[in-house]
């Protein structure tokens, strides 16, 4: 009785067939991982009326703009003592920890694309040479749990400046292992507590937490902090990302 009327509408399946096929083309369907994602996508489609979902996503997009407006670019998130750090950090992804596919850090390279002057790719060793910034911040998951984490690696703003990125562009887009995607707004990318993390609690990142490179920002919910980054693109084009396609709020600021 508490649930709004949501007729089971099979037309939702056809509505998103293009999207599901697009995912298929990108090869995401190959792993068991992505079967889980597919279940979620199709599950969503039949469970909620399309027009209701459209209206709710319109409100969610409005909420993106509100969050952008209240974002304080120089306001620092609270930081914590090393003694409060959770070890190891809490794992969370759209698959279980056993299904993590480790990246070979020797052959791995970070690709750069879009509005960047120097698009030469970076090896892990080259990234390790960059000055490191350490932040001990709270990780807040959209599910409700949280923990204190100690992350270090190059400051994202410093990195973007170094490679000649257009800092007036709107978005930083991350392409990760298994075609996972995530993006953040430029204001967040330039926030002093946004880093490309290569270490946790002073040690190299472990495989489940994004080795060799992940995003860590103090101003976003956990799911925005892309792990296993393969490429960074600076762009003015808004694109839906892995989680936003499924209906999670895109801005996801905290």
């Amino acid at each position, binding site marked *: 009785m508490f649930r709004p009327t949501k007729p089971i509408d099979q037309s939702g399946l056809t509505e998103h067939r293009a999207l599901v096929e697009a995912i298929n083309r990108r090869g995401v369907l190959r792993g068991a991982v992505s079967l889980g994602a597919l279940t979620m996508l199709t599950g969503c489609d039949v469970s909620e009326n399309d027009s209701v979902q459209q209206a*709710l996503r319109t409100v969610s997009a409005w909420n993106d703009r509100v969050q952008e407006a209240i974002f304080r670019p120089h306001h620092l998130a609270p930081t914590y003592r090393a003694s409060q750090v959770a070890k190891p950090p809490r794992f969370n992804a759209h698959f279980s920890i056993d299904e993590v596919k480790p990246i070979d850090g020797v052959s791995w390279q970070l690709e750069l694309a879009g509005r960047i002057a120097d698009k030469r790719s970076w090896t892990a060793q080259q990234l390790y040479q960059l000055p490191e910034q350490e932040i001990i911040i709270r990780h807040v998951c*959209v599910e*409700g749990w949280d923990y204190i984490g100690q992350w270090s690696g190059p400051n994202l703003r410093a990195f973007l400046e170094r490679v000649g990125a257009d800092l007036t562009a709107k978005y930083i887009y991350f392409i990760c292992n298994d075609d996972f995607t995530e993006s953040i707004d430029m204001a967040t990318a330039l926030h002093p507590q946004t880093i490309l993390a290569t270490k946790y609690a002073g040690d190299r990142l472990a495989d489940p937490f994004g080795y060799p490179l992940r995003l860590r920002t103090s101003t976003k919910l956990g799911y925005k902090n892309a792990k296993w980054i393969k490429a960074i693109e600076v762009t003015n084009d808004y694109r839906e990302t892995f989680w936003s396609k*499924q209906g*999670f709020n895109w801005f996801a*600021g905290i």
Partner: protein
Amino acid sequence: MSTATIESSAPTGHRLHPVALRIMHWINAVAIFIMIGSGWKIYNDDAIFGFHFPDAVVIGKWAQYGLQWHFFGMWIFVLNGLAYLSYGIASGRFRQKLFPISLGEILATVGDALRLRLSHDNLTHYNAVQKILYLGVMLIGVLIVISGLALWKPVQFSELADLFGDFQTIRLVHFLCMSAIVAFIVVHVSLALLVPKSLLAMVTGGPTVDEAKPRSTVASPIEATP
């Protein structure tokens, strides 16, 4: 002069529940319904206590839908709530209906209630327990919004979040506020169903009350006699 006399003796006062108030009441009912149902869905993703809300009573089949509903409902709840509080304060309604509250009156009301002697003949007068419950649920409503803001933006509003303590404390406060509102709704709806004319009054407006005598013209013959 004679016309003035006629006017003041005719029932020209406003309804017990003016139309603006009734509209805000029912908008609030819908908003609360959305916020609680979707809030329970969000809670289920990381239960604070050892239980989950059954799927049949939550709003949103998936976590993201619960979140979408919650961050849609919040606008209705907050904007309507602000309008309601402004109206209640500016019109003098809160002052007239909810104050003063005396300790003696509270004890008397509780005594009457225990002896099942509470009178509902006069809808325009709230007893002390009603006054406390209505005031209390409004304060809880304010607190649930403030704790919600701190939960939504613990970094942007870190000064606010710090007042509560750590993140899980904010969640707990938000949850307890919800529990208090649910308890209020149980009592409020039960009593409205037991005294159907009070429910009807929130739809049709109820009896006409004299502006100058908020205690009502209908139920009190002594006041009506010159």
